[in-house]
C-alpha cells in the first residue's frame, strides 16, 4: 500500500450538545463542561442522559427548502451556518464548479424521526396524513439530498450509513474520488439527531446508562446518546498548503457479530494498521487519539486493550463522549473536529467521566486536560455490523 498523498482540510465545523461551532466545542472542553442533560426529548419516557443540541427546533430552513423540513435537516442547516462554512463552500464552488465537488455525508438516523412522527399521526385509512414535504424525507438519503440543494452542489452525492462509523468513512470515499480526478473538492460530514428509534433501540439492547456516560471508567454501565452535525471541506494540498491535513484512513470489518465488537478488536486493529500504513506513520509518531470510547462495557474494554498493546505512553488518548454523548452516525465527523482542534490548539481533552479508571486502561490515557503540541491526531469510529474506521490528521507541514 503506497503512502497516501495528503489532502488539505480547508474548513471544518461541528455543532453538538456543547454548542454551535468550533469555539463552543473548544471552550467546553477546556473547562471540562459536559453537554449532557437529563432526557427531555420527546415523551421523556426513558430515564437517561442525552446530548441534545439547543436551538434545533428554531433553526428554520431557508426559503425554498421547506419541503426538506425535519429535525435532522434543521440540525444540518444549523451546523452548516457555523464557522463561515457556507462561505468557504461557495468560494470552492466558484473556483472549481458545482459539478467538480462531491458531497458525501454519513448518517445513521437520517430523518427517521420524521417517519416516526408520520406513524404517530396516520389518517383514518392507516396511511400517512397529508404532508407537504418531499417523500424523500422518509429515506436514508434525505440529509445528503437536502444539503446538496442547500449548497447548490452538482457532483457525486452519496450517503454513507454504516451506523457509528458513517461520518468517518466519508473522508475515505472523498479521498478516492479526489485521487482519481473525478472531483477537485469534497464536502464531507454527517448529521444524526435524537429520535425514538435510537433511544428505544439502544434501550432494548440494554446499552443505555441511566447516568451520564462514563467512558473507560471501571463503573461504566452504558452510553448516553447525543446528536450532532459536522462538516469539513477537502481540497488538494496545493490549494491550501497551510491547512491541516488528512494524512490517511483505514477501514475494516470485524466479521464477528451484528451488535458486539470482536473480542480482540480485530477489525479495529486492522483499520488502525491500514490508517497508519496509508499515512506512512509508525505508532510512536501519533500524539493524540480521540477514541471511540462509547462507555459500553465491551467497546471500551476492547479498545483500551488495543491502545495498550499498540502505543507508547507518550501517545495520549481520550474519549470525548462524556461531553457530547455518542452522536452515532455523526460521531466520526464530531471527533475528527476534536482531533483537528487538538492539533490547532495544542490541547488534549481529558477523558471526562473516567474518575475511577478501568484497570485495562494503560498510561496513554489523558484523564484530565493536557497542554502539549500535537502534530498527529487519530480518530477511531466503530459501528454495528463490525464496521470500523480510523482517520489520521496532521498539522500543516508535518511530514512522516
Amino acid at each position: 500500500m503506497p503512502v497516501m498523498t495528503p489532502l488539505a482540510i480547508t474548513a471544518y465545523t461541528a455543532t453538538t450538545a456543547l454548542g454551535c461551532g468550533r469555539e463552543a466545542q473548544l471552550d467546553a472542553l477546556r473547562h471540562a463542561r459536559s453537554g449532557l442533560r437529563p432526557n427531555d426529548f420527546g415523551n421523556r419516557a426513558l430515564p437517561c442522559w442525552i446530548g441534545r443540541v439547543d436551538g434545533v427546533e428554531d433553526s428554520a430552513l431557508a426559503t425554498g427548502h421547506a419541503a426538506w423540513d425535519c429535525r435532522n435537516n434543521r440540525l444540518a442547516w444549523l451546523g452548516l451556518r457555523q464557522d463561515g462554512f457556507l462561505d468557504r463552500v461557495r468560494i470552492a464552488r466558484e473556483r472549481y464548479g458545482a459539478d467538480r465537488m462531491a458531497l458525501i455525508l454519513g448518517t445513521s438516523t437520517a430523518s427517521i424521526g420524521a417517519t416516526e412522527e408520520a406513524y404517530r399521526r396516520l389518517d383514518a385509512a392507516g396511511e400517512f396524513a397529508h404532508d407537504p414535504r418531499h417523500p424523500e424525507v422518509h429515506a436514508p438519503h434525505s440529509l445528503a439530498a437536502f444539503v446538496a440543494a442547500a449548497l447548490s452542489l452538482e457532483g457525486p452525492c452519496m450517503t454513507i450509513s454504516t451506523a457509528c462509523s458513517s461520518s468517518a468513512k466519508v473522508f475515505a470515499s472523498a479521498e478516492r474520488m479526489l485521487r482519481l480526478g473525478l472531483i477537485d473538492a469534497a464536502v464531507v460530514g454527517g448529521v444524526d439527531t435524537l429520535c425514538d428509534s435510537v433511544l428505544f433501540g439502544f434501550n432494548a439492547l440494554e446499552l443505555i446508562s441511566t447516568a451520564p456516560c462514563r467512558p473507560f471508567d471501571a463503573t461504566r454501565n452504558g452510553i448516553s446518546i447525543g446528536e450532532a452535525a459536522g462538516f469539513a471541506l477537502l481540497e488538494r494540498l496545493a490549494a491550501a498548503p497551510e491547512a491541516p491535513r488528512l494524512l490517511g484512513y483505514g477501514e475494516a470489518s470485524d466479521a464477528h457479530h451484528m451488535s458486539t465488537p470482536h473480542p480482540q478488536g480485530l477489525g479495529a486493529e486492522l483499520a488502525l494498521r491500514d490508517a497508519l500504513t496509508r499515512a506512512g506513520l509508525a505508532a510512536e509518531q501519533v500524539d493524540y487519539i480521540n477514541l471511540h470510547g462509547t462507555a459500553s462495557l465491551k467497546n471500551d474494554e476492547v479498545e483500551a486493550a488495543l491502545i495498550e498493546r499498540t502505543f507508547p505512553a507518550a501517545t495520549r488518548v481520550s474519549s470525548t463522549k462524556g461531553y457530547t454523548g455518542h452522536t452515532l452516525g455523526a460521531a466520526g465527523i464530531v471527533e475528527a473536529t476534536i482531533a483537528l482542534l487538538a492539533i490547532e490548539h495544542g490541547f488534549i481533552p481529558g477523558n471526562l467521566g473516567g474518575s475511577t479508571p478501568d484497570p485495562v486502561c494503560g498510561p496513554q490515557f489523558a484523564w484530565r486536560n493536557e497542554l502539549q503540541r500535537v502534530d498527529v491526531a487519530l480518530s477511531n469510529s466503530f459501528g454495528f455490523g463490525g464496521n470500523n474506521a480510523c482517520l489520521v490528521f496532521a498539522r500543516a507541514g508535518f511530514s512522516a
Partner: protein
Amino acid sequence: MSALRVCVEGVGLWSPRLGNFAALQALLCGATPPPPAARPAAATLPPNERRRAPESVLLAIEVAGQAVAMSGRDAATLACVFASSHGDQATTDYMCRTLAQAPTELSPTRFHNSVHNAPAGYWTIATGCHAPSTAVAAQHASFGAGLLEAVTLALSDQRPVLLVCSDTAGSGPLRKVTGCTQSFGCALLLSPTPGEATLTQLALTLTPLHAATPLPEPLASWSDTNASAAALPLLALLATGHGCCELGAAATLGLHIALENIA
C-alpha cells in the same frame, strides 16, 4: 476526466420473476424463464442465520453470493459496497409502528437489523471477511452512486470489489411513500485488472444527467416499482454483451457506461 475502466467478473440478480443473471439473458432472448422460489435462498448464510435474517438481508446476500460464485473469487478477501435506496422497509415499518404504540417493547434484534449496513454486517460475518465494507444510499441514484463508490475503491486501492444494490418491497403505510412495490437486487464483481474470469470491461465517465437509458420490453416499467432496478439498463447490456447506457449517479449527475470487449 478520462474514463474509469473496470472489469466485470460476476453478475448476480434476483427479483420475483428472475432468479439469476442467466434468467435475464433468457428473458431478453424472448424466453420465459421459470420464476424463482418466493424467498431468496441466500445459501451463503449459515442455516440459523438464514432463518433469522430479514428478507432485505436474504436478497442482498443471494445476489452477492451469485456474483462471487461466478467470479470464482474468495469472498473473505473482497471489499464490499452495499447500496439500497430505502434499506429494510419492513423493519422500518415495524420500528415506527412499535414506537408509535409501545416503544419500550421494541425488539433488540430488529433494532440492530434496522441499520443500513445490516446486509454488509451479515455478509462479512458469514464469509469471514475483514476487508472494508460499506453501505450507501442515494435515493433513485443508489445503484449509480454505489457503482461509482465501488469503481473508485477498486481503482484507487487496486483490489476487486463486490457491489450489491437491492431494495425489498415496502410494507405498511411506508410502501405508498417509497413507491417500492417489488423486490429487486443485483450484484457485480468488479476487478481493476483483466483476468481469466473477466466477462467484459466497463468504461465509465461522469456526465450531466440527460435521461436514464430506457429499458427494452418486458423490463420497461420495472424501475418504476423499485429504485434498485435502475441498474437494469447496465444489466441488460451485460446480458447482450455490447452497447452503452446512462444511469443516474446523483440528482443532476449521470454515469455514462460503455462496454468494451477485451481480447
